[in-house]
């Protein structure tokens, strides 16, 4: 039997909980999953890497049909968007190149290359090891400098800070997830919220998540409060790490400093919780708990065009 997971027509961080809920419901009995994206009209980088993480989880936990941990030969199904523009964009964003390994894809995928020069500053890119982070940082500096400076009005010096933030976000996968993940970076005009251009970094994996990673060193300190929300709070707000080395925990702290300087936002979802550092221009909530469970961690970083950012 195949269980259906509907991909939201507008698939971004706001609709992700709806997707996670459908995923959790469909995956609970270990049947093969069908991710239905045929009606998709738009997906943010966060939606695209999140969908890959779901595919990774569906294979890794037996949702591929064979049952049992360790995955199955039978991959989950994915129906591709039917709208030609959407299909072309998902392809240019590098989604299908990665999805082909995870899903049995139904629908005609166009043969276009992942974007070289466009608003897709970094196509969906796998992150499995430190070498991948080197490649990501090198690529983003080559491709993003001009857009960050000319279109977002960031000081040219900020480009290196952007690369640093991206590096640290990717390293969370390498060091903590226990599996691979994906990153994507895109610039676009964000009409709904800001009426400005923004650059968005999205990172997702279906690994062990923050709670599991920090549990051995932090759970006693939090006592009965310990859970996904407490783990996210410990990592992002208190800068703790699972490593006892006093220099650890610098990565997320550094990202926060960078975003404070450029009026940016970070949100991290892991397990059943989501935490955000919310700038004035946004109305997100700082901490949400009791969300539909979703494996691993999903990170969203938004840097707005500089100038007045009215809420």
């Amino acid at each position, binding site marked *: 039997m195949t269980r259906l997971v509907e991909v939201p027509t507008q698939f971004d961080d706001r609709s992700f909980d709806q997707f996670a809920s459908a995923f959790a419901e469909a995956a609970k009995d270990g049947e093969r999953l069908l991710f239905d994206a045929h009606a998709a009209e738009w997906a943010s980088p966060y939606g695209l890497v999140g969908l890959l993480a779901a595919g990774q989880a569906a294979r890794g936990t037996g949702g591929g049909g064979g049952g049992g941990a360790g995955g199955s030969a039978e991959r989950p199904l994915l129906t591709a968007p039917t709208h030609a523009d959407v299909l072309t964009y998902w392809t240019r964003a590098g989604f299908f190149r990665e999805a082909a390994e995870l899903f049995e894809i139904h629908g005609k995928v166009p043969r276009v290359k992942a974007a070289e020069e466009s608003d897709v500053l970094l196509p969906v890119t796998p992150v499995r090891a430190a*070498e991948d*982070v*080197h490649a990501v940082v*090198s690529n983003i500096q080559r491709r993003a400098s001009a857009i960050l400076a000319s279109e977002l009005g960031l000081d040219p010096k900020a480009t290196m800070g952007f*690369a640093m933030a991206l590096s640290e976000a990717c390293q969370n996968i390498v*060091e903590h997830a226990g599996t691979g993940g994906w990153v994507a970076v895109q610039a676009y005009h964000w009409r709904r919220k800001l009426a400005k251009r923004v650059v968005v970094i999205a990172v997702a994996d279906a690994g062990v998540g923050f709670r599991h990673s920090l549990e051995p060193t932090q759970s006693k300190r939090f006592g009965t409060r310990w859970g996904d929300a407490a783990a996210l709070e410990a990592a992002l707000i208190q800068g703790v790490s699972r490593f006892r080395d006093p220099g650890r925990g*610098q990565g997320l702290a*550094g990202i926060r400093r960078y975003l404070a300087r450029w009026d940016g936002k970070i949100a991290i979802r892991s397990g059943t919780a989501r935490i955000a550092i919310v700038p004035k221009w946004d109305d997100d909530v700082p901490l949400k708990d009791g969300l539909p469970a979703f494996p691993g961690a999903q990170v969203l970083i938004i840097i707005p065009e500089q100038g007045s950012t009215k809420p």
Partner: protein
Amino acid sequence: MIQHIDVHAVLQESVSGVYTDLVTRPTGRVVRECIERAMATAAGDGAVARIDFAGVGCIDYSCADEIVAKLLRSRPGVLVLTGISDGHREAIEPVLAGHRLAVLIERPDGTLEAVGAPHAAAALLEELVARRLAARTPGGTLTLT
């Protein structure tokens, strides 16, 4: 004698001949261990090592911690960083401040500046003068002797 260590060359030889960025903990660890081996061959506790970052692209916080902070904690001699860009400083300064450490940066004109935690930076400059490793110029700035 002042030992000179070219970080870009160390990175190219030890980790990657392709990338110029100091990113990720594993990269930082390998580069630091190479620097430590090179410094071990230099003379005694009072040795000055000039660590040159020219040609290095991005340094992330993890590498700033893994290389600069850990060298400062383990190394009894004096470290002087050169070839430091504004972007490099953006990673190094807060990491050192978090550890209550400071390091010397040599500007292109040869003058010295201590960056990191303010108390540690002031103490570092005082120590340098007391040990006659640096002297004040008529303009009031410090240079290595």
